[in-house]
Structures are given as structure tokens and as C-alpha cells.
């Protein structure tokens, strides 16, 4: 039994491995979420509210389960110690799938508890302005993919855990300007949000190019790991670069497309759509509060 998936230099096989830390983390996350709904959730006042609550819970649970899959056997094991391409897939899953699902699954009343008025909420407000979030996320992404940091981190369960949790934190920061669950931390307006996500789809081109076009394997972790089948580490690294660029781009452009269509619909029927993102509509019947006006920054 190990604490967290990390590089071990053991030969790869399909025997399941148990990671205590990842199970504890996922169960704690889901347990705390369930407890919050039981103790803190306002009473359900309508069928529509019940339907929205169900959707939020589903988003959060799916996000937590995808996170667990990313840090547990076999994806976590392969990605932390054997294949850079699977490692990149984990990064994409945690930052671009798990983080937005967790934000979508966070109800307003819980977000208010998690981001209390004061410095914490001021910090969230600052991050939700776009550029700071973009800078912080890419600083985390760049540093955790630099061989000088990634190799030592992946060599220990604690280091690997720090890396995974920093990806989760970075993902939450990245998506905050687009999916903020709090009206007091306003989202970017739709055109700005689309530009923001477009910028994020372009920025990884630089590190992805390093991975795709490097002549030699950059990471000692994957170069010296026992081989999985006949996959060559240089080819695996190229695949990692392509995943970083193409899969991440696909997810971000998919979100841009969703924003675009909703925004277009709101322009055609301005009386029917009160918010470019329908998730925010819950605020209309939440304590009678309307969302704060969107801002262009």
C-alpha cells in the first residue's frame, strides 16, 4: 500500500495498486460535500430548484470521481511513473474537466462559506478578473511540467500529491473567471470569457512544442521507467505534447462554442435570457438575489 501514485521503478503490470491518500482525499471531499448539503443547504422551494440541485450534485460527484480516476490505479500509476502521455492526460483531466465540474457543482450557499467575506473573497475577486488567473494557472502548469521540478516531485508520493493538488488548485483558478459560483465574484462577460479561453488554448503551444519537438526524452522519470509494452519514451513524450495541445484545445474550444451559442441566443431573445450562462439563473430564485452585473476587464 502506498500513499499516492508516484514513480517507483517497479515493472508495470495490470495488478491493481492501492493508494491510501487518494482514497482518503476523494472520500473526504465527497463526505464534506454530502455533509454540507445535509446541514447547510436551504430548503427546496420548487421542482425546478430540486432539478438544479440534482444537476449540481451530479456535476460535483462526477468531478470528484474523475479526479479519483486521475490519481488512482491505473491512470494515476501510469501517468506518474511510466508514460508522459498518460501524465499529460491526467493534467488535462484534473485542470480542464475536474475543476470546472467541481465549480459547477458548488452551490452559492456553499461558495459563500468557502469564500468568506474579507481577504479570501477579495483574492477570489482578483483572480476572477481573468489575467491574474491566466498567469497563475500557466505558472503552475509551466513549473509542474519543467523537468527540473517534475522529476523530483514525481519521485515521491508526497511530491506527486503536491503536483496533483496544485493542478486541481490551478484548474479552479483557471475556471473561476468563467464559472464563478458566487454573484459577489462576477464572471467575465461572454465575449471576454471567450477571448480568455481562447488565450488559454493558445498559451500551451509553447510547452507543448518543447515536448513534441524535443530530440530526447526530457523527463528522467519516464525515460528510465520500465517500459509499458514497446512504447519508446521519445514517442510517448511527443504524444504528451500533442495531447497538451490538441485535447486541451478541443475542451477549451468546446466551452468557447457553448458560450458563443448561448451568447448568440441571448442576443436574439434578450427578454428571455437573463444571463449568458444558465447556471447563474439559480441566483434568481436563491434568496431573491439577482447576479451582480457582468464586467468587461
Amino acid at each position: 500500500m502506498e500513499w499516492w501514485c508516484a514513480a517507483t521503478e517497479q515493472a508495470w503490470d495490470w495488478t491493481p495498486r492501492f493508494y491510501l491518500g487518494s482514497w482518503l482525499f476523494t472520500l473526504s471531499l465527497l463526505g464534506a460535500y454530502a455533509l454540507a448539503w445535509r446541514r447547510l443547504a436551504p430548503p427546496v422551494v420548487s421542482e425546478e430548484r430540486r432539478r438544479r440541485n440534482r444537476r449540481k450534485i451530479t456535476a460535483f460527484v462526477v468531478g470528484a470521481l474523475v479526479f479519483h480516476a486521475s490519481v488512482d490505479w491505473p491512470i494515476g500509476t501510469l501517468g506518474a511513473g511510466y508514460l508522459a502521455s498518460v501524465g499529460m492526460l491526467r493534467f488535462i483531466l484534473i485542470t480542464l474537466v475536474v475543476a470546472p465540474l467541481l465549480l459547477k457543482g458548488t452551490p452559492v450557499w456553499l461558495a459563500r462559506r468557502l469564500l468568506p467575506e474579507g481577504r479570501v473573497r477579495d483574492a477570489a475577486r482578483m483572480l476572477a478578473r481573468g489575467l491574474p488567473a491566466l498567469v497563475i494557472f500557466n505558472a503552475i502548469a509551466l513549473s509542474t511540467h519543467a523537468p527540473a521540478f517534475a522529476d523530483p516531485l514525481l519521485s515521491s508520493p508526497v511530491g506527486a500529491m503536491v503536483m496533483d493538488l496544485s493542478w486541481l488548485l490551478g484548474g479552479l483558478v483557471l475556471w473561476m473567471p468563467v464559472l464563478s459560483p458566487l454573484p459577489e465574484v462576477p464572471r467575465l462577460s461572454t465575449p471576454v470569457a471567450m477571448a480568455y479561453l481562447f488565450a488559454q488554448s493558445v498559451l500551451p503551444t509553447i510547452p507543448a512544442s518543447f515536448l513534441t519537438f524535443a530530440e530526447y526524452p526530457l523527463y528522467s522519470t519516464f525515460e528510465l521507467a520500465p517500459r509499458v509494452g514497446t512504447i519508446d519514451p521519445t514517442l510517448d513524450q511527443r504524444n504528451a505534447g500533442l495531447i497538451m495541445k490538441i485535447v486541451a484545445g478541443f475542451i477549451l474550444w468546446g466551452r468557447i462554442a457553448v458560450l458563443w451559442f448561448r451568447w448568440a441566443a441571448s442576443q436574439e431573445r434578450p427578454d428571455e435570457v437573463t444571463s449568458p450562462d444558465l447556471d447563474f439563473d439559480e441566483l434568481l430564485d436563491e434568496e431573491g438575489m439577482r447576479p451582480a452585473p457582468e464586467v468587461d476587464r
Partner: protein
Amino acid sequence: MTMTARPLALALAGLGLLLLAGCETGGADALEAGQDGILGVPLEEPVAKPDVVLTDHHGEPFDLRAETDGELTLAFFGYASCPDICPVHMANLTSVFDRLPSTVTDRINVLFVTTDPARDTPEALEGFMGSFDSDFVGLTGDLDEIVDLMTELNLPRPVFEEPDDDGFYEVGHPAQVLAFLPDDDHAHYAYPWGTRQSDFTHDLRALVDGAAAARP
């Protein structure tokens, strides 16, 4: 750009430069070049190439000195059922050979000497070597003969673990690759476990071209 974002952007740019600068030196145990520009670890005392005849993976006799005389020769001692180090070393050397021109690789011998001749018959070695460069040679022989050879090269003798329920056992063996130079047929450098493909590529080019002639 706001006042808040500017320091963040500068910090990111600085971090990026720092990290990219570190890309080539990733890894805690990176080899450092000596005065001769070679990354391999110089042996305190060069060791002569042993005079021994083993059996190659085709079942043919292999006279070590005669077959490799005057050529750069890399020798690694391991075993075919090794789950980790042996196949990785050999696969990395294969990747290195794929990158080097044939004018270089034609002048290099790579020898994989088994430390587990009971299991590593020529047939078993042929299967193992089939995963790597076709010019690499797998060698087997009597255990005593191989242990003597390792002793002559100042390498620790193999250590056999107890077999598990399936009869599988691991064998402790040296993890370094020894490099015998073409000019004097002596081993001058060792490449420990952790040597990167880029390190091998650099040194093999240099050693074939005689760069090590300037060694102290």
C-alpha cells in the same frame, strides 16, 4: 495591464525562463563532464578487456577480444528476465543507436552478458535481444566463467534471490555499462543507472572519434 497583473506577468516570464533553462539538466543525478569532456564516470584504474570466449545469442562462440578488438565496446551485465534495469538500459541504447549515423554505430559493439546463464540459454537470449538493436550481442556461458569475468572487471558478483511460488527469482547485478575504448581495449568509463539517452549519444560520438585520447 493592471498594477496587480503586471508583477504576476513578470514573475511568470521569469519563471518560464528559469524553467526552460533547466530543461536540459533535469534529473537529480545528471552526469557531469570531466576534463576530457566525457560524461561517463572515469574508472580509477582502467581494466583490460578480459580474454574469454563466451557463447552469443545465436549459439556461436564469441571471443571477446578477437571480436571487439580496436572498437569501442559497451558491456552490460544483466539477465533477460530482469523486470526493470536491464530492458530499460538496452532500450535506451537502442534509441541512441537509432539516432546515431551508421558511420558511428558500425564502430561500436554493445554486449549484454547474462548473470543468469541457467535461464539465459542462447535461445532465451535470442528472444530477449530481439527487442533491441539487431547489432547488439547477447552472451552467455558457465556461471563460474561469468563470475570470473565480472571479478576481473572489478564488478560485484551476481546475487540470486530465493525463487517465489512460481519459481521466478530476481538476480542482483551491477547496473552500470562499462566502456572499453578502441585505442587500448581497456575499460575507462562506467555509465551508471540513470544515464540518459542524450548522455550516451554525446559520449559515444566523442569516444568513437577519439575524444577520450585527451583523458588524464
